[in-house]
């Protein structure tokens, strides 16, 4: 790694000014578990590392029964899964936050970093897409808010302009009869990159599906929202047949590649199996909230 400067802005404005000045040459540092690896491998070049963890808006978890949960972009996983409101209302977030790397990585890695790194296999992203999370983005021209499914574009590419940063992730307020789940398949029990990951969100109404949202990771150049898989069963009874319809649609939507982690056929098969399993758990969770 060549010489790089370090800045630690303590306000959002200061952070944005640094971004405006350095553009692509500013490397934003949250937990650093992607950034420092990239810089060291010379896969990214930065003139200045901008440590954003002292910016208050990026470093807090806020919960309100009506407006929902706001997780600052740089809050590390361990703070998220130890948060009492997250434990109580959003078990689906813990599914992702507790499997990113191991204990040491979770002491640093943030969900915002996971999203901004924009890997096709990012473990936190399918859950966010399924749960209908929006991203708050700040830039020199003000703020904007977009759904997570519009954020990633391709491996390591996303919609952020060079003067913008991610401020926070906003999870909708908890509702009764809803449940979310993220699961992935990896060859080990932990510490590996997802061969396939599936995020699911359901809302039930008298044993019928009112809303179903499915998102898949590692089967396309970015995590994808498979709208048609959920839409296919809206209004239908919650039973094995409808669960299988969703799983089948998820499999059809996947366009994976063959690589050392798995073949196209294997990945498509995993989409079906994992969607079914994740949906079953999400349904159980939804029933527990009644």
């Amino acid at each position, binding site marked *: *790694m*060549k*010489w*790089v*400067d*370090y800045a630690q802005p303590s306000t959002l404005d200061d952070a944005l000014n640094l971004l405006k000045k350095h553009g692509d040459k500013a490397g934003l*540092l949250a*937990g*650093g*578990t992607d950034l*420092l*690896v990239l*810089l*060291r*491998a010379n896969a990214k070049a930065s003139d200045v*590392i901008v*440590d954003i963890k002292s910016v208050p808006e990026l470093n807090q978890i806020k919960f309100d029964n009506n407006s929902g949960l706001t997780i600052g972009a740089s809050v590390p996983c*361990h703070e998220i899964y130890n948060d009492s409101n997250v434990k109580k209302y959003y078990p689906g977030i813990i599914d992702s936050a507790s499997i990113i*790397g*191991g*204990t*040491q*990585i979770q*002491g*640093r890695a943030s969900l915002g970093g996971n999203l901004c790194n924009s890997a096709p296999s990012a473990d936190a992203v399918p859950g966010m897409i399924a749960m209908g999370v929006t991203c708050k983005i700040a830039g020199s021209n003000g703020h904007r808010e977009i759904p997570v499914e519009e954020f990633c574009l391709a491996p390591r590419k996303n919609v952020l302009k060079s003067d913008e940063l991610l401020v926070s992730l906003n999870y909708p307020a908890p509702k009764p009869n809803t449940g979310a789940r993220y699961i992935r398949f990896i060859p*080990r*029990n*932990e*510490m590996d990159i997802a061969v396939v990951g599936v995020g699911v969100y359901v809302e039930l109404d008298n044993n019928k599906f009112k809303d179903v949202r499915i998102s898949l990771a590692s089967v396309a150049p970015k995590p994808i929202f498979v709208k048609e898989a959920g839409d296919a069963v809206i209004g239908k009874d919650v039973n094995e047949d409808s669960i299988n319809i969703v799983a089948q649609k998820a499999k059809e939507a996947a366009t994976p590649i063959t690589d050392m982690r798995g073949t196209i056929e294997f990945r498509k098969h995993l989409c079906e199996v994992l969607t079914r399993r994740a949906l079953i758990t999400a349904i159980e969770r939804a029933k527990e909230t009644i």
Partner: protein
Amino acid sequence: MNAKVHVQTKINGEQVDFLCEPRQSLLECLRDIIGLTGSKEGCNDGNCGACTVLFDGRIVTSCLVLGVEVQGKEITTIEGIASPEGLHPIQEAFLENAALQCGICTPGFIVATKALLDHNPNPSEYQIRFWLANNLCRCTGYDKIVLAVQDAAGRLAASKN
């Protein structure tokens, strides 16, 4: 101008000042500047856990922390685990259960185990394996390490009674 940064921090309970380049990892600072060589470098990319230290009470891989980030924080390294009176019960348990061969992974395992037992004094085998998944060992095999952690938990519980 490429100026080194003056960092003030607390390491193993003592106030420490050092000068480093912003790009230098905490691991490099500990080993090459401060002279605490107990933390080891296995992979330098967060996978092996040999560089594990406590950072404000949480375990992290010090190869993925910048030295400049520890300004005003508290760090505990393997050098801070034993006391002047002797080895820590976790260290004794690793020795007596032969939970090491070459020993390069051991400082990381011991620091990670310390954090585990501080937060969960009686972990199940599953919890131990899950917690230590970020620590790799190429020679001993994990069974002996898990047994040592269980033994250490027993020793610590006994010393509290």
